[in-house]
């Protein structure tokens, strides 16, 4: 990203707002918050030049905990808001964040088209395969046999959504996976994502210790992908289709130019603006 303003003296904690998170103890989202602040500090970003837009859900509380501009948007609508912000203020570093339900179900359509538009921003989806805020219902990424919710007795019996495959097919320019069990590794992925031009998608595994306590085992299951990032979508497609959901790292780095419409001149006079609304 070439519009970054550097602020070398800030430490990760300087990017925190001071508002205490209310996530459950043990929640993976604490690590994601840490990874984001570490990435921002490493990139020496000035907080006033960064904006984070979220949807609704546990993980979407993120903007309140950061000392950058934030917008807690409508459910599933973080991406359209972030897209509008980035195209009108291309000088900002724009991040969007949310959970798997917010991003892949309620906001599923926006996800595909944000990948397709390829606006220069980074989208972090904290995936815990459950709707946590509403007390534990199956989400699009839940395994078909997960039967702990009374709403889906015997499991959903529906194939889960494969966000990385969808992202590639829809045109995302950067696709990576990170894990809250490794916040330092996640910080590296986030730095790479923010520096890569175009739409960067980071699939962040973030266990829900309350409704999916078995996900604590993810820390034993995640591992670095034994491959270098590819720029070839065909290779990436094969890689992502055979992925077991626990390979970490940057898996695809495309070279499509980011979409940035030409900005119209700013209106100096309010009466000039009014003319546009006269019927």
């Amino acid at each position, binding site marked *: 990203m070439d519009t970054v303003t550097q602020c070398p003296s800030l430490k990760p*904690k300087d990017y925190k707002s001071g508002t*205490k*998170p*209310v996530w*459950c*103890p*043990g*929640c*993976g989202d*604490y*690590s994601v918050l*840490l*990874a984001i602040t*570490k990435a921002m500090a*490493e990139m020496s970003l000035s907080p006033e030049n960064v904006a984070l837009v979220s949807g609704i859900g546990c993980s979407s509380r993120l903007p309140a905990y950061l000392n950058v501009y934030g917008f807690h948007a409508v459910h599933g609508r973080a991406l359209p808001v972030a897209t509008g912000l980035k195209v009108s203020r291309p000088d900002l570093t724009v991040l969007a964040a949310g959970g798997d339900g917010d991003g892949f179900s309620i906001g599923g359509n926006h996800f595909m088209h944000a990948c397709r538009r390829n606006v220069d921003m980074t989208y972090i989806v904290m995936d815990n395969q459950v709707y946590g805020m509403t*007390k*534990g219902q199956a989400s699009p990424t839940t395994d078909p046999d997960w039967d*702990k*919710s*009374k709403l889906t007795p015997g499991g959903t019996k529906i194939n889960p959504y494969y966000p990385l495959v969808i992202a590639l097919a829809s045109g995302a320019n950067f696709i990576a996976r990170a894990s*809250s*069990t*490794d*916040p*330092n*590794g996640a*910080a*590296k992925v986030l730095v790479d994502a923010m520096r890569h031009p175009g739409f960067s998608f980071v699939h962040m595994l973030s*266990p829900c*210790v*309350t*409704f999916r306590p078995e996900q*604590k085992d993810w*820390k*034993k299951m*995640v591992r670095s992908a034994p491959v270098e990032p590819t720029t070839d979508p065909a290779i990436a497609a094969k890689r992502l289709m055979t992925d077991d959901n626990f390979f970490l790292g940057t898996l695809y780095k495309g070279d499509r130019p980011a979409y940035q419409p030409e900005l119209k001149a700013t209106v100096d006079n309010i009466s000039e603006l009014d003319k546009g609304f006269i019927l």
Partner: protein
Amino acid sequence: MNASNSLSKADLLARTLTMLSETVERYDLFADQMDVVNNPEAATLFRWLSEKQGSRTQVVKKLSEGLTLPHISPWDYDWDDAINTEVPGHSSAHYMMTPYHTLSLAIDVEQSAARLFSEIEQTAQTDETKKLAHGFAREASEFRDYLEHKRSEHPLPEKDWDEDYDPPQLLE
């Protein structure tokens, strides 16, 4: 943090400072979490642990005076839940944890730190680094012993300590 045989005194101090600072922040965070879930015993212990680590951080800062410490990127070290516990992982906390668990977590931290510094001591190339690592290892071991003694004052948790009779799950 990986032991490395090429650590200079400044490298070791930089890594130790980063490690201790993160541990202080993590204990503070855990204390805040325990306040939120109304677990005052664990919250108080985490605050005490944070103060202890804060004092050690000040000592290391003092030792670093006059030195230019190298910048360490987060990915230059690999303490995390899965590999090391020199800094307690976020997933170590549980809303029903007892003082016994809290102290056990801190004992793991000190044990891991002592082991790491001993490794650094054994592989260090200079006497200066060796001596410093030896001191840090001894300090971590002594604090671990103290924590073990303190933990012995608390009862062993029941087998079903995390059984919540008013669980957050939607059951109806």
